[in-house]
């Protein structure tokens, strides 16, 4: 039958499968459809004109051939259209699909300062024992910082080489420890100490000493002071409280050790060691192999400190401790340089302070 058809139609028929496969989208397919089976100027229109003009005896065979071709084209186009439509649908679905692994918008994250966090933690640890927080000014009088604490008038700490003084007020200084808060608090509560049933508090805060800045010294640092006054308070109560608190901080298997020492405002005085929280007392770099790290100084309140505040040391007694916050933070975090705590690099603060 093919000899009845012109050459260009035959060629178009042969090219059809290739052209169909080359249609990458529906627009191309539409154009192809127009060229083959469109209403104007298409191969199908040409074939129909051919059929009309054909001699009668050929019409039958030619008609069958033309129908075969047209059917082949229409089916091919339809199948390809379905294929392309489905592909488009798939693409649309993919475009709509959310990849959860893409970095999401995240709320900004800040951090508390590690030193404040450590102080807050200490407050939390002592709260269940009935301790509250007392605070005092950083600019203090010599009386509160030294005299009320049984520190002799010629003590070297009073020298201008050790303590910062105010130029316009020679009697004022930057407190060298949080202990003046003891003096202030005892003076305030002394008149109604009996009604209160004694007093117990923590005093966290910033203190100043005239030290040059280096990896282990800073002219400003933090301390937490603890004090308890009651009836019949002795070393057993100091030990009991510190054992509770240091276990709450470092874990239930923590051991503590008291060693005799001396501070003018306590008698007896002691240094307190804690079994190394980093190695579990097995011996490491932090505890220098000893299994113990020094954590704070403490003792029973010197009777002169109570007397200065107007509290009768024959009736009342108590204990006090003081710890260096940076020292403890450095030990726990193994931070090699104290200055990092005052550089305020956000990376350091995020890593060391974090959120609650």
């Amino acid at each position, binding site marked *: 039958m093919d000899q009845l058809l012109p050459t260009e139609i035959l060629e178009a028929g042969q090219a059809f499968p290739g052209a169909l496969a080359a249609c990458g989208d529906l627009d191309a397919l539409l154009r192809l459809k127009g060229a083959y089976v469109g209403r104007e100027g298409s191969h199908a229109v040409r074939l129909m004109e051919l059929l009309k003009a054909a001699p009668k005896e050929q019409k039958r065979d030619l008609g069958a051939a033309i129908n075969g071709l047209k059917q082949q084209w229409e089916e091919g186009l339809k199948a390809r259209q379905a294929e392309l439509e489905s592909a488009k649908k798939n693409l649309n679905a993919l475009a709509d699909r959310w990849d959860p692994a893409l970095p999401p918008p995240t709320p900004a994250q800040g951090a508390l300062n590690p030193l404040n966090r450590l102080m807050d933690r200490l407050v939390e640890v002592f709260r269940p024992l009935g301790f509250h927080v007392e605070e005092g000014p950083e600019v203090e009088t010599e009386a509160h910082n030294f005299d009320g604490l049984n520190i002799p008038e010629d003590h070297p700490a009073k020298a201008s080489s050790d303590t910062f003084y105010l130029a316009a007020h020679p009697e004022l200084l930057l407190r060298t420890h949080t202990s003046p808060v003891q003096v202030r608090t005892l003076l305030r509560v002394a008149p109604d100490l009996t009604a209160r049933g004694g007093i117990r508090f923590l005093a966290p805060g910033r203190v100043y000493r005239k030290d040059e800045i280096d990896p282990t010294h800073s002219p400003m640092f933090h301390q937490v002071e603890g004090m308890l006054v009651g009836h019949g308070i002795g070393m057993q109560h100091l030990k009991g409280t510190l054992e509770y608190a240091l276990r709450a901080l470092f874990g239930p298997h923590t051991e503590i050790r008291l060693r005799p020492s001396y501070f003018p405002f306590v008698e007896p005085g002691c240094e307190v060691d804690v079994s190394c929280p980093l190695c579990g007392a097995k011996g490491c770099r932090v505890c220098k192999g000893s299994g113990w790290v020094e954590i704070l100084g403490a003792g029973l309140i010197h009777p002169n400190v109570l007397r200065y505040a107007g509290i009768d040391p024959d009736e009342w007694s108590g204990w006090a401790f003081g710890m260096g916050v940076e020292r403890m933070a450095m030990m726990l975090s193994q931070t090699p340089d104290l200055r990092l705590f005052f550089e305020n690099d956000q990376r350091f603060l995020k890593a060391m302070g974090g959120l*609650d």
Partner: protein
Amino acid sequence: MWIERKILAQEIPASAGMDARQLSELLASLGFPVDGVATRGGLEALDVDITANRGDAMSHRGMAREIAAKLGQPLTPIGTPAITEQSPVIEVRLESPACPIYSTAVLELGEGATPQDVQAFLLALEASPKKLPAVDASNELLHRYGHPTHAFDADRIQGAVSIRWAKGGETLVTLDGVTRTLTGQDLVITDEAGPIALAGVMGGEGTKVTEATRRVLLESAWFDPKTVRAVARRHSLHTDASHRFGRGADPAMAVVARDLLVGRLQTWCGAKLVGVWTVGSVPAAEGALVLTEPLLTRVAGEPQSLAEAADALRRLGCSVAIHGDQLSVLPPTWRHDLAIAEDLAEEVVRLRGYEHIPSVLPPLEGPPEPLSASFLQRQRLSRRLAHLGFHQTVTYGFISPEADAPFAAPENPAAGRTLSNPLGQEFSVLRASLLPSLRASAEQNFRQGAREVRLFELAPTYVSGPQGPAERHTLGVVWGGALGGEDYLSPARSVREADLCGIAKDLGWAGLPEVHALGEGLFGFEVPVAELPQAAARIIPTFRPFSRFPVVERDLSLLVDLGQSYSTLAAAMRSALPRDILQDLRCVDVFRPKGLPEGRQAWLMRLRFQADRTLLGEEVDGWVSAALMAAEALGAKLRA
């Protein structure tokens, strides 16, 4: 202080069998931690830490006394040569109560040198031997027995010797070659030509013992601790002698140390005694202390036997008598630190060992106090800011005057906040504001490559006043850099002043904070914490009903003059609207599209209405036009 183990064992033979580690543990348990061990010239020495109250422990004999008391083992008696006091060869006058006893001798030196073992001992303690027997013997006695002595070249002393207060303006060249100008509070040894030594601190260059010295005058005295401390401090001259006299030497050792020194010079270099005598006497002991059983029991934490306590105190050298339920205790002449009953109780507990103290939680005698509102407020603020993405800084309270000045109010002069002895000018003024420190921290973070910096600090700032600087808790916040642009949904933009206002508002600051531009794209504000709202006193506030009817929202796009005050416009619009029905009125966009008249900008105002009924379209239209009229009265126009 270095303690050499062989000499220690000569003083307390019971220590001979202990190794350095055992000794260190024993000493630490007594309150003398050991910082290290060093071997020099084959001798092993421990670096012992001695607290300021224990001048008596600053020698091998002192350490031996402690070990002997702890172990209940005997000390080796001090072997002094038999020496009889004679009449003075040189007149010695005690003219100040700060020197109650002065024991001395004059010797003619012979041939001979400091023995090798003594030189090795001194080297082991990092005390360099001078190879002059009189000097080395004095030095060796100091380290061994803790009593400082001094040898003068007797032939350089002119006439009588006095121990007296210096006269203002007198000078002395001390052994370190420094010319010291003296005051009336300096205790000196003088001859008739003037001062020859700073008593208890350092000898004088003019009378020092040299290779040429033929005759020596020995000094073994006792000086008042407070005086010695003051002299050492005044001249910044801290010596082995001043440390020991300053913390309280043993007055009873004055004669003993003199005898020991004489004996050593006789043995070491065949010195001949010319004269030996003592002026003054050991000061009378203070009265006995009373230690009661209840005090001892309270401090120790459990009942204590008075007999055992008496035994412990006796081992420490005290004279103890038991009277009923109390002890009458006379401390030994070397223990100046035992001044009150509590000191004695400590000694009993210390000797027994702190490891025996029981562990007891103190009973609660009264109701616990709450945490103060101010403390809780600061805790809450810092947590809130941390959750808002800010990092809490800690910076020094003192800054440079240049950094302080731009942020200090005129009524807050720096003079009232200036330190007299700062570490440096950059740390000399107590800051009036946190912003300079926060800015410095922010800049540091940017230098380190931070894209965005959010910092805050809660710390006192200072206000000069007649009574000195007043402190007030202040919150400072800085924010700068680029915001967003770090994920596929958040557009990037720079931090703006308004961002800081939003933070202040979030913290409850009423009104607008003063936002400072602190550098390119860096802004900050600070507020007194006391002026921020505290947590409400009530746990749950009173219930206020809210409408369940729908909210009607309308937007008005207004053209306003550049420079139009937003708060004036918003207030004017608000006043035209029913207060109980207007839920919210706010500007939600500010823009200047092309084609806008010169000097104008567009504000998109959003109004929200709600009532306890369904609102009608016409009434809302009426309010919106009323609001528009109010805005028009201020020159605004509806944008077409």
